[in-house]
């Protein structure tokens, strides 16, 4: 640990994001490997295959390598290299909430001028463009055209509701309360099948996203970005109601011992027919239709007879969590690789390429691609994404994100597993997160 800390500490500092050129510099004709870093999940493998098949048609001297790490190591794998001011990747795929930390530390290029000259920004829902690139963070649903951009969308995502048509009927529940009562009845009618399955683990952002989703649906807010106030906002009446619904109404409908479930475990429960209604990221749902991984049918069609996909139910609001990630350019990458990275981004954001990406299993962000038959017909849950785009809300995109999400994850996980009373957990989150924001003017002291 001491060695790792010291290696990271010897890196040196800058502090502000360097600018990428507006025009793509001359590209090398020598063999070049363009490296991405992402966490290990199906879209990462799909991206490598897609880019090597399509991008290399125009740039045969380039090889695309998508390096993957376990999800729980994703942030650390990128930011320890950023701290050393030397990266073995050219394009870090950051979660939208990582942007603040990377921009403030000068780890990724400011591509505002590049975007103005090379990207058709009107082809996107403004919030999608802002969510994966803008800093300071955009107001929910909007984009500030005067703000700088540091990334472009790579993979859109949100939660889909997965429901058993053979157990609860073809029509999905429309409100959150209705969803809970349907799950309750389904669980009572089908012994061995739990009413609900959702993310509860305390690694990554699992339990935090679940609470944030319920918080949004019940009209709560995570913070007031203008005053940077969390205590009193997150744990207001709406926030408390959301925590109560999650812990006292939803948790009893989950399987025993599911308190450490994340993406794979929820998918496993659905595939084995152990859940009436489940929530998961769309980009991770492809495996549910694979007969080799499912006990719901021996063909894709048989599985689809039993599984339905729908946008999340609404309650006091219709907000859904914004998932997905953007592409960025490492400030420590060699110039030739940075130029190639910019060229890749320009190529990737073209309308026809976005449609091909959709057909290859990706979730595009351009509106024309989202509404294209290539995307909508590729998977049964793709329509859910297109319908959910106007409803999205993100977490905090600030340099302190990693600590904020850890505080929320551990406390929500504690409440879900009986280690803390729900109200105490929410009050602790608000108080501890406020402490982190208030202390953020300090540097490497504190942090306990």
């Amino acid at each position, binding site marked *: 640990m001491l060695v790792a800390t010291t290696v990271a500490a010897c890196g040196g500092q800058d502090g502000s994001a360097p600018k990428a050129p507006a025009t793509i510099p001359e590209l090398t004709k020598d063999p070049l490997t363009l490296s991405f870093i992402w966490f290990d999940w199906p879209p990462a493998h799909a991206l490598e295959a897609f880019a090597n098949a399509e991008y290399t048609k125009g740039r045969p001297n380039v090889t695309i390598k998508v390096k993957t790490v376990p999800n729980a190591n994703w942030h650390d794998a990128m930011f320890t290299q950023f701290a050393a001011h030397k990266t073995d990747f050219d394009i870090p795929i950051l979660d939208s909430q990582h942007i603040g930390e990377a921009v403030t530390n000068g780890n990724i290029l400011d591509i505002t001028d590049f975007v103005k000259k090379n990207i058709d920004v009107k082809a996107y829902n403004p919030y999608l463009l802002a969510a994966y690139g803008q800093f300071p963070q955009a107001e929910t649903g909007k984009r500030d055209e005067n703000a700088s951009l540091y990334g472009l969308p790579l993979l859109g995502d949100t939660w889909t509701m997965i429901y058993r048509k053979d157990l609860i009927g073809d029509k999905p529940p429309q409100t959150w309360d209705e969803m809970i009562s349907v799950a309750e009845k389904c669980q009572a009618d089908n012994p061995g099948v739990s009413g609900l399955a959702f993310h509860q683990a305390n690694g990554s952002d699992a339990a935090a996203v679940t609470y944030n989703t319920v918080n949004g649906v019940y009209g709560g807010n995570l913070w007031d970005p203008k005053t940077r106030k969390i205590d009193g906002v997150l744990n207001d009446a709406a926030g408390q109601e959301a925590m109560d619904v999650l812990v006292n109404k939803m948790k009893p409908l989950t399987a025993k*011992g599911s308190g450490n479930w994340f993406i794979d475990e929820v998918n496993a429960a659905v595939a084995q027919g152990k859940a009436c209604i489940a929530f998961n990221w769309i980009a991770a749902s492809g495996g549910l239709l694979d007969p080799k991984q499912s006990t719901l049918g021996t063909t894709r069609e048989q599985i689809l007879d039993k599984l339905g996909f729908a946008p999340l139910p609404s309650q006091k609001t219709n907000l859904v969590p914004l998932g997905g990630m953007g592409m960025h350019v490492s400030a420590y990458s060699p110039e030739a690789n940075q130029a190639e990275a910019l060229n890749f981004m320009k190529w990737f954001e073209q309308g026809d390429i976005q449609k091909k990406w959709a057909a290859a299993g990706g979730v595009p962000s351009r509106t024309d691609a989202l509404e294209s038959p290539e995307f909508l017909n590729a998977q049964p849950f793709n329509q859910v994404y297109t319908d959910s785009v106007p409803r999205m809300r993100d977490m905090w995109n600030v340099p302190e994100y990693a600590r904020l999400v850890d505080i929320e994850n551990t406390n929500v996980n504690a409440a879900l*597993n009986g280690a803390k009373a729900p109200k105490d957990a929410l009050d602790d989150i608000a108080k501890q997160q406020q402490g982190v924001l208030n202390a953020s003017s300090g540097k490497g002291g504190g942090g306990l």
Partner: protein
Amino acid sequence: MSDSAPLTTDHPGQVASATPPAPGRSRRLSDRGLAVAFTSPALLLLLAMSVFPLLWALYLSFTDYSATRGGPAQFLWFENYTAILTSPQVHQRALTTLIYVVGAVALQTVLGFAIAYLISRRAHGRGLLTTLFLVPMMLSPVVVGLFWRFMLDAQFGVINSMLGSLGLGQVEWLTRQRTALLSLVLVDTWQWTPFIMLIALAGLTAVPKYLYEAASIDRASEWFQFRTITLPLVWPLLLIAVLFRAIEAFRLFDLVYILTSGGPGVSTETLSFHVYKVAFLGFNTGTASAYGILMVVIVIVLTQLYLRYLNKLKED
């Protein structure tokens, strides 16, 4: 003696060698020079990988340095140390670590010694049994953590499946406060009991047989022989094994990371896991360095006290 030394000697009785230097060996390289040449790569590596990081971390521990945020480090002197020592979060992790270390090492010592004692009494198959028992110790803790995570899964795990077939209820091994820490202790015990067993077995086989023969002639009972011959002779060696295991257990990180991620909540977060979060989630490098230094100091102080006790035991 250097190889250019004269053939005579100042020391009476010592015969001077008339053998010429070995071919290929430089006449200018003295024995001391040769020794330095051979040891310097290891010394340089040690300096670069251990001593320098330790000293650098010591320096950082007095500052507000962050590995990712800009600006020069400012001296805080003992502010980081005070914050750590007075933090309720740290106290909670220290208690968790203490419970874990005491529970795991005590269980491993009892089981390890018992297995070693039983093996030592066997005349045949001792080697094979010892080898089989050592297998868990040879596995990577990450691999051990992963397969135990699957085995302890409340829904799909083989342990609950076996309990179910015995008519017992499901246990939430990894998601309840008490069982999560117990699971960590059990998995660590499964992996590291063989280590204690191995050391204890070495001690048991070194006990002179004539002591037992003399005791048998005096018609001493098995229990009396164990209490007055076996245990006193093996005890010092066993305590060294306990020391090694306690230091290892105090640094526990990998099993926590894989099995529980510190949960539920933070109830299985050990000190090492907490340092990791401080260092790499918030990049509070100054605080993390102070935290790491304090852990090293605690281990050194406790080890010194323990070794003094061991020496006293030997003298007695």
